[in-house]
């Protein structure tokens, strides 16, 4: 496999200032990325959308932190039994369906394939100016359909989560059965919903690569989505560990 350049080799353009000094940047209100073929614009857009997705991480992280703290507190809750005078906790530990391990593996793999897709695209856009020079025609390299693979793996993860719910329901474990099962469904469903958002973004990127051939926009979408996707992967591992070890 070809060596993919490290992201910092080509991504940090160095010539982009951080608001305040340097190139005049008044303007550029480009309607969320409708315009712009010029290069600096592409780097600015990349930086802006990365900032965006970083803030989305924070929002999602806080959301799941709130749910986790509710989880921890609810786990310790109980009531005094008036007959015996004992403190009764009603939390019953939940045995996780083993399929979750397979799902975890699928999601980890999808993170890898998406990273390949991202690096591939970044390499393409870095080479784009050279290709534009007449007489220089670098060999056409066909790369694996990393985006499609990611979509398939991501879809597999979501299907696997559905299967896990099916298995639990077949075992008679529903949302209201016990707080432990309530939290299982809420955490997995919230995560699946957030991941589905990432799937939509990837579908959009795939449609860009087929229909519009606007490489810059595709790079931005795939780059930002891949960061989001990795974050979703880490978040899943966190949720999995919480559900597994804090029962």
């Amino acid at each position, binding site marked *: 496999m070809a060596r993919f350049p490290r992201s910092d080799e080509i991504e940090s353009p160095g010539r982009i*200032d951080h*608001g*305040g*000094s*340097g*190139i*005049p*940047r*008044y*303007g*550029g*209100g*480009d*309607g*969320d990325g*409708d315009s712009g073929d010029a290069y600096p614009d592409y780097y*600015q857009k990349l*930086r*802006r959308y990365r*900032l*965006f997705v970083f*803030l*989305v991480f*924070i*929002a*999602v992280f*806080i*959301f*799941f*932190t*709130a*749910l986790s*703290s*509710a989880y921890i*507190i*609810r786990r310790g*809750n*109980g*009531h005094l039994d008036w007959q015996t005078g004992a403190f009764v*906790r*009603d*939390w019953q530990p939940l045995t996780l369906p083993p399929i979750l391990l397979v799902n975890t593996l699928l999601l980890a793999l999808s993170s890898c394939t998406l990273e390949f897709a991202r690096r591939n695209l970044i390499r393409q856009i870095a080479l784009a100016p050279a290709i534009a020079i007449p007489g220089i025609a670098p060999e056409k390299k066909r790369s694996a359909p990393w985006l499609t693979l990611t979509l398939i793996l991501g879809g597999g993860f979501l299907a696997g989560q559905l299967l896990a719910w099916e298995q639990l329901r077949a075992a008679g474990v529903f*949302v*209201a059965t016990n*707080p432990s099962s*309530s939290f299982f469904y*809420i955490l997995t469903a*919230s995560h699946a919903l957030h991941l589905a958002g990432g799937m939509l973004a990837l579908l959009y990127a795939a449609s860009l690569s087929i229909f519009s051939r606007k490489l810059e926009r595709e790079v931005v979408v795939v780059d930002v989505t891949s960061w989001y996707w990795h974050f979703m992967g880490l978040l899943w591992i966190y949720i999995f560990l919480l559900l597994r070890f804090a029962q």
Partner: protein
Amino acid sequence: MSDASRTDRGTASGILGRVFSRDHRVIGLQYFFLSLTAALVGIALSALMRFHLVWPGASLPFFGAIKPEQYLAMLTMHGTLMIFFVLTTAPQGAFGNYFLPLQIGAREMAFPRLNMLSFWFTLLAFLVLLSAFFVSGGAPISGWTHYPPLSAVPSAGPGQGTGMDLWIASIGLFCFASVLGSINFIVTVLDRRAPGMTMMRLPLTVWAWFITAILSLLAFTVLHAAILLLFLDRHAGTSFFVPEGVVVNGSVLQHSGGSPLLWQHLFWFFGHPEVYIAILPGMGLTSHLLSTFARKPVFGYRAMVYAMMAIGALGFMVWGHHMFVSGMNPFAAFAFSVMTMVIGVPSAIKTFNWLGTLWRGSIRLTVPMMFAIGFVSVFVTGGLSGPILAQPALDMYLHDTYFVVAHFHLIMGVAAVLGIFAGTYFWFPKMFGRQMNSTLGYLHFWITFVGAYAIFLPMHFLGMAGHPRRYSQLTDVHYLQALVPLQRFITLAAFVTIAGQAIFLVNLFWSMRRGQVAETNPWEATTLEWGEPTDSLTVARGAYEFNVPGAKAEFLPQREGQDAS
């Protein structure tokens, strides 16, 4: 001069393009009129509540007598409308959207389409909330804080069924819109500043919007998680918040093991930062206006910035002071109490710096300046009762009385509203190209300012005398008989103050069409929004260069090349 001459960009033409605009100025105005509408509904509700408190049996035309559950529904909706759709929406959504890009020299927000989406989600949230009035059972009655089990059990009262579900849906939409909006604000400030606009040259208004956006990002996501759990308790049979053996209407609920305290923790983790989300933009604007109209630099600019950061950070560590009477661990209460009193330090820094800004300035008592000074006044008055309530022992007594109503209305409601008025009078020339009438403006200020004190100052005495809040009808209670005349006075003061707002409305809509045409920089201010629109600009200096020793002009605009205007 309004900047209507700037060509419209990034916006589709036609009526649809104007309504669904991505232009931050249009979106700002949309937020402005949304919160104006919400404020009018909220004010109408408070008028009805004040009427009912004093004349509980009296029959209103077209309405009949107000029933206790209707009073509680009004209480809930008044709080929700005012806190979410006025105090959160107007300072940040309206003025922030309109003026943040202008003040940092950006042509647009970082994500205009996202910005548009935020507004339409907020509007949808507003409509969903209002629809709660018209469903069977009416609006929810559990107060804007919605403590379970009352809020978690649909059969617990009228309005707790569909009305409560609509409330949850509305706030869910609002949270989503706020998070999108706050991300947009943060990216815009970090990424869109014009060359030369370093962070420490930002106007304090921008700093306030920036810090407020960070608070919104962290707070609304927690509320979102909380209402998700509340919704599941209501409809999926889970037991997060409903404890064992709750009896409603004679039947025992199936829930078991939940904790009402858990909801209070989650809610107030959002709820307390929300107070600062409402007030910080007002603080920023007040600093801005005091400097502009005292013709002096802001006293201690950096201290002001750091104080706002400290208030924002501490705001996340004090939520427990809303829960002293909830049965929380007393040791936790002690910690929250200390942290709460610590907030007095940055607040005092801000107050003294405001006074320092005014000290020996060439003060111009324009209408926006009057409102800014009014802000400082009610901020101090409302703030001073804070350390009293921050002490668990005192709060035990005062918590469910009008003392708290007085405290939070002055510091959060009235102060923030005075800030919104100040912003409206100050930026009106920029938004509509004309000046508001100043005679009507002064009249409006004095009625509002004196009226607000007449309403809320006596409430402290009601509270100290033990008059409970939230009850619909206490006129026949023996130990409160002596307080009835005071309540009547408050109601009359409220009616006069509310009537005074008509002056503002007339002035607002009349001045839009007929007001005196404004110059480019009518207030002789320094910040970027008061310059002629250009294609490129560079920022040369900080935001508050008034009467700088050795400078050739009385004030130095931030924009490069505009030294001697």
